[in-house]
């Protein structure tokens, strides 16, 4: 790792770790919500609830870390000044992705640890590895969705807007309430949400079943839409600068 990249990582991690407003909702809430609502799930759904809250954690980091930092990039004098420094802007993005992986890992590990302790979930190592892989894929989509959100929202609006999208998506996707318990109208919408797709992949990982290409396509679709939003928003900001 080069010195500028190390410095970039240290800056990103320090800023986020010293900001409870960031890590409480993203790292602690998934585990807490799991303890409240997921750990009671019995039988088949017990392990699935763990996977659902793991996915929920992944999406939170993407939304809150990238959504907010991208929105701030446009407005903060510090971010503006950083652009006058030597070196590649790419390092900043590498540092953000690495930091997000750290937070995702901690958040997911907390959910899994609670599931083992509180929920008495028993899944094998292979299932956990598959779940970790799903989390990685979900991170990819979540990151682009976060960047899209940050490209549209002002720095002030980014957090409330992230909540406004993130929480309904979690419910719609069947991450809090199992999909079979969703009203049928909601379930129809649910099929198209990225959260449902992430959840389904997570549940397949636990069960060791085949991934449904339909849900992979949904994730890909949301990623493409997010990238398109970023490109359009970027062009608009450039014209207005």
């Amino acid at each position: 790792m080069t010195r500028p990249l190390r410095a970039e990582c240290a800056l990103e991690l320090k800023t986020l770790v010293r900001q409870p407003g960031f890590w409480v909702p993203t790292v602690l809430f998934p585990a807490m919500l799991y303890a409240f609502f997921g750990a009671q799930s019995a039988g088949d759904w017990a392990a699935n609830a763990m996977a659902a809250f793991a996915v929920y954690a992944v999406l939170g980091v993407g939304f809150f870390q990238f959504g907010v930092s991208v929105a701030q990039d446009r407005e903060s004098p510090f971010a503006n000044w950083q652009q006058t420094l030597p070196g590649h802007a790419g390092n900043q993005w590498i540092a953000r992705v690495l930091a997000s992986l750290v937070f995702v890992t901690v958040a997911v590990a907390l959910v899994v640890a609670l599931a083992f302790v509180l929920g008495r979930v028993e899944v094998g190592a292979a299932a956990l590895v598959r779940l970790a892989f799903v989390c990685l894929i979900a991170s990819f989509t979540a990151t682009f969705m976060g960047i899209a959100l940050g490209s549209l929202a002002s720095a002030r609006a980014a957090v409330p807007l992230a909540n406004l999208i993130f929480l309904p998506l979690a419910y719609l996707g069947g991450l809090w309430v199992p999909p079979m318990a969703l009203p049928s109208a909601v379930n129809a919408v649910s099929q198209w949400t990225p959260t449902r797709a992430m959840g389904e992949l997570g549940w397949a990982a636990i069960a060791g079943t085949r991934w449904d290409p339909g849900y992979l396509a949904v994730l890909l679709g949301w990623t493409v839409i997010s990238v398109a939003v970023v490109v359009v928003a970027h062009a608009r900001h450039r014209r207005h600068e």
Partner: protein
Amino acid sequence: MPQARFNDPVRALGLAKRFGTVRAVSRIDLNVAPGEALGLLGPNGAGKSTTLSMLTGLRAPDAGEILIFGHRAGSPQARALTGATPQLVGFPDQLSPREILGYAAARYRVRARIDKLAACFGLERIVDRRVAGFSGGEMRRLALALAFVGEPRLVFLDEPTTGLDGAAQEGFQEVARDFVAKGGSLVLTSHHWDEIEAVCDSITLVDRGETVLEGRIGDIRKRASVSRLTFSLPPETVPPEWMQAVHDGARWHSECADSDKTLRRMVHEALPFHGLTVAPLDLKDVINRIRREETGP
């Protein structure tokens, strides 16, 4: 003026930038030689900050050309050689000056001389404190230190001393003069004429996006080598018409090209003045006079 060279620290020609319908900059030329400090002066909204944002590569000009040491503005080579401080300051609340300075040093790949910088800019007491809650002046000191942390050969400063106390302003002027004496180049915007005179060799005056006056401060002074006579008169006495003196409520002031001649005539006409002082005109008044003469009635 010496011939401008291709790889001079700053060569900018015919810069223009508009924001929607606002023409922020319409025709600005700048040249800065090695070891030269240039003061960018002008009223609010004249286009100074916009010009600096183009020189640092943050904004692309709509027209014109910029070369920084012969490199495109904002190119990796140009950024490695320049340091800058923004007009607006704001730092991540969670970090300390030491951490931010260390970060910047790493990006420039230079050794972080943080304690030395902290001493130069009066940051010793706050260097390990988190930025959250810093006063405006403390933020400004950090911003100044950041412009110099990368050992640049060219520094852009946008109103560097706004909100600084007297000691910090003097400290800054010392650092700036030292930097220039060692061959560094400086572009400085300011509304403080005394600061410009203390630090800069030349000035560029901009108004409504255009360069209206430029040159070395010494040459400008020669163009209008005018003195100001200040004196008191007994009540009910007024100076003769030819002096074109103005009263400020307490004393009389008169500007003249040849103070010796004026003084002799005042004595010859037995004007009962007392408490007379003769001083060169302030740079600000010199420039106002030149511009009045140029635009003419």
